[in-house]
């Protein structure tokens, strides 16, 4: 089986959103970066499936030169090789991103055979466009199920469980297929030291830098919302605050 998982490099935001000077991006000088949370589960799932049935797992990202960090992270967890669609700075909208990924998939499939399963996160942590996986699936003419918290590959099909808030809906898709997953699908492992050492030697292919198409959904500027406007009242310090807490709970009617 050959599996592809697509990931996005996003900053760890911590407690406060701080924008750059022209307000078009987060100020990330003091932030670390990670694979977007849903996609961390996509990486873990791809590794588990290949561990179970054998074959090859591939990770792909579209992003700046520094995104090699996330590709190495994915390989340190067990992904076999990486494809990097390297971009300059600047925002890629969902259509442009999907278009470049489809091109990379076609090229890889021509060289080394078709992917049986392609995984995306349901939505990225930062832009939250909810669309790249579905656009890629459509362009490839493959079925797609979204927002999955359960995935089971069974021979020539994949059983997909989508959390609906009132239980789970099950879709069974014939392979090859595309799926988008959510955090909670699995508990991703931590990279081991030997895993990191192996990852440094795994193949990383930098693909011809694609030209960024004119965005059809064009970011103008970002803003930090005005907040919930809560005014904080200190109820006390240590266990001595307990009576004040219970009094507050009584006032708002929860005890």
């Amino acid at each position, binding site marked *: 089986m050959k599996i592809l998982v697509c990931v996005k490099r996003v900053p760890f*935001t*911590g*407690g*406060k*959103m701080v924008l750059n000077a022209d307000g078009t991006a987060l100020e990330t000088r003091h932030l670390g970066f990670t694979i977007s949370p849903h996609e961390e589960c996509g990486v873990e799932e791809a590794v588990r499936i290949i561990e179970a049935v054998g074959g090859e797992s591939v990770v792909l990202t579209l992003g700046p030169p520094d995104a090699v960090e996330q590709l190495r992270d994915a390989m340190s967890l067990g992904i076999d090789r990486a494809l990097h669609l390297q971009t300059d700075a600047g925002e890629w909208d969902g*259509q442009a991103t999907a278009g470049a990924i489809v091109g990379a998939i076609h090229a890889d499939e021509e060289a080394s055979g078709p992917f049986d399963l392609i995984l995306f996160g349901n939505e990225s*942590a*930062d*832009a*939250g*466009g*909810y*669309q790249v996986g*579905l*656009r890629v*699936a*459509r362009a490839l003419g493959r*079925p797609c*199920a*979204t*927002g999955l918290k359960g995935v089971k590959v069974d021979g020539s099909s994949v059983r997909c*469980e989508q959390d*609906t*808030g*009132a*239980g*789970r*809906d*099950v*879709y069974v*898709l014939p392979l090859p297929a595309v799926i988008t997953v959510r*955090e*909670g699908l699995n*508990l*991703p492992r931590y990279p081991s030291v030997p895993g990191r050492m192996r990852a440094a030697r795994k193949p990383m292919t930098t693909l011809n830098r694609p030209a960024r198409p004119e965005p*059809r*959904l*064009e*970011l*103008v*500027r*970002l*803003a930090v*919302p005005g907040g*919930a406007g*809560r005014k*904080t009242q*200190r*109820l006390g*310090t*240590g*266990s001595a*605050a307990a*009576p004040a*807490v*219970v009094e507050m*709970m009584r006032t*708002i009617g*929860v*005890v």
Partner: protein
Amino acid sequence: MSVVVLMEEGDPSRQMLTLARKFGAPLHGVPMDAFTPFAPDSVAAVLEYAAEELHATAVFAAGTDRGNEVMARLAARTDLPLAANCIAAEPGDPVQLTRQRWGGSLLEEARMHTTRALITVAPHSVRIEEGVQPLAVDVNRFQIDAKDQVVRVSEHVAPPGGGVSLAEAKVVVSGGRGVGSKEGFAILEELASLIGARVGCSRVVTSAGWRPHTDQVGQTGTKISPDLYIACGISGATQHMAGCKGAKKILAINADPEAPIMSLADYSVVGDLKEIVPAISAEIRKSR
């Protein structure tokens, strides 16, 4: 100058109509449950055909899981741009939008260059205008291709029974890194059982394997709106606040008075949660 709207049960769809009607009239509604079992590509196909036939300027849906999914399928099949989770929208060329990023922790002002605007509206970000009622689209008039019926629900698995869900709980007692261990949650469980609350947690806790992901409050977990949210040993990262900002009141208990949550909450108590939480439980017992 009509508009096609994808309708679901509940307030988010009614909120969506407030923005949709700015793009034209009349509104033509396609029900999300037009097909049984649910087949998202079939619904997207109906939206496409209806929008074509009616020369719609825009197609709108609520930014629910299903709304975003079906609209992305429509965007993919028509090769049009899609703006998800908007909180404001003005028609024109280009269309002017404000949309949520980072689960609502950041707003993006955007321009959409398109012949037909595809927009989902972030739930609970826009006021409902009373008396807006879309005309019903007769979905049976459209021929649905077999390939648009491949993806369909084949089975439903009922939720595990027992108690109220995290999303619907009136009070949630949550723990973060400060709880220290899986076992450390016992005092939160005790307080929760005394007041009929649900226990929640932050992302750090689920990543460490202390609690299941179903307990996670946050951007990538459950979004909650209880009367009271008690956050114990949680710093208040944007990832977490995106999930609990719907709470009517927030009480933060934290050893660090400088933690972000201590100025984002309505009430705060500084100190060791391992002393404070049992003291609150004891105080409740005493007062009964």
